[in-house]
């Protein structure tokens, strides 16, 4: 098998911590250690995709082209009339929030006064 793009990425602890920060995940020392190892294994595994030459191949983000009626404009069905309709009950919805105030979701202060 020919590797057309032989790139291998090294996954280290600092990188995992950076990605964790992007994902708003706080990791303990043990977790960071173990996940660095596991992620490195998984990333090495998914690099088998590099065995395939995909130049000139369009990416698939959705399978709509396979399920649209022949000749139908795929984007057509994604449009709908902008009708006014009942939405969720605000009281019932806010009742599920860990904290609410003044008819809205309450979060810790994040703007300095």
């Amino acid at each position, binding site marked *: 098998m020919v590797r057309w793009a032989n790139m291998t990425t090294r*996954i280290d602890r600092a990188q995992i911590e950076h990605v964790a920060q992007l994902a708003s995940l706080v990791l303990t020392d043990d977790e960071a250690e173990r996940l660095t190892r596991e992620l490195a294994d*998984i990333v090495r595994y*998914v690099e088998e995709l590099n065995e395939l030459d995909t130049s000139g191949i369009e990416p698939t983000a959705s*399978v709509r082209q396979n399920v649209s009626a022949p000749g139908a404009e795929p984007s057509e069905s994604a449009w709908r009339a902008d009708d006014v309709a009942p939405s969720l009950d605000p009281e019932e919805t806010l009742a599920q929030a*860990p904290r609410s105030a003044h008819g809205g979701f309450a979060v810790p202060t994040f703007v300095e006064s």
Partner: protein
Amino acid sequence: MPQDDTVRGIAERVRSGEIQATSVAESALATIAAKNGALNAFLAVPHEDVLRQARAIDEKRARGETLGPLAGVPIGIKDALCTRGLTTTAGSKILEGYVPPYDATVVARLRRADAIIVGKTNMDEFAMGSSNENSAFGAVKNPWDRERAPGGSSGGSAAAVAARLVPATLGSDTGGSIRQPAALSGTFGVKPTYGRVSRHGLIAFASSLDQVGPLANDVRGAARVLGVISGKDPKDATSLATPVDDFEAACGGSIKGLRVGVPDEYFAKGLDPEVEASVRAAIAELAAEGCVVRPVKLAHTRYAVATYYVIANAEASSNLARFDGVRYGLRVEPANPGRADVRAMYGATRDAGFGTEVKRRILLGTFVLSAGYYDAYYLKAQKVRTLIRRDFEEAFREVDVICSPTSPTPAFRLGEKVDDPIAMYLNDVYTLPASLAGIPGCSVPAMPTKSGLPVGLQILSPWLQETTLFAVAAAFETRFPSPVLSSSS
């Protein structure tokens, strides 16, 4: 449960007045109360509400109204689907105690068909898993052998049907999460074409792959449930306006002359010999029924696992960003915040609320989308997804359905694969390609192993050809009736 405990058996007798929905509900509640403790298949069963729903159906009939196609049928709902007024956790601590203010479209459609929503079934956290061991609320036990996993992520839905707690359940399938537990638990399950069923109210894992579908104790029962939940929903822009076929009528149709493709790539290294023998025997049954069996090539099968874990987890990392302690579920304020810090609250909440596998997948998903890696991993996987999709387009020019094992092994022992994520992922190798291509697929019980563990025959059909799939599954079920778990267990 009364004599004919299939979806149709119950619905027809409730519709005719032979039995009352209330007595069906009481019987289901009693069975669940007796058996669920050992299985952990249901996470929530709202006793009073179940009886109230049943009484409403009986009153409706007493008023002379015609009852719907699922009249009085008790149905379990995977806990990833929102149920108004009934806890919905997706198997996660981060949503413990969450009570949705709305029904998922599929749940609303079941109610409209006069089904009884009996409760919520256990699952791998956010549907991430193949064994149900990733549930924050304990693993589900396989009813055929309680030392073994029922499969996942819809493990509770599969176990509940296999143990005859209910005749049908809803599951969701992102990479095999209906078909694989159906196979490992010895029941029928179907993942429809992507877009056939609304995803509104399904807690999102990977939006380009997620589909809701039924599991049931017979093929026709699943066909009826799928008919009820299918169809365009203005609340899901990816749901299809394509007319909903009569899936139930398709069951019993002749399959003589139908071309059945058998891909070599699905009988590869790692396939259990007993599973292979069972599936080959099942395909021989289809040949005896008049099908024309021929080899078919799906060249990119072995890349499906890597492709899936990049795409699904990229989408998951984005979808799961909504769990931040603000609008619903858990919130953890940092112990010593110094100055108030909303980001620290997000982090503390997500750290306490997510399990290990979910964190692992969010990290992988965030990594493959991050600057400098997007093209090499995410875009690359999307291109390979095209190759996998084209494999099916080409194969279905030559055959009407494709048959294979659903899972390479029968049910494995609880704990056997928890410490090896890649071994766990490889368990999905035969279900992932259909998810990536968006085609429908089902798993129907074939001959069990010598030790009595269930084996699933996977049947795949082209986009929107669920009728063919149901015809083949029903014909197979007639030739080989699904083994039934003895009621003592």
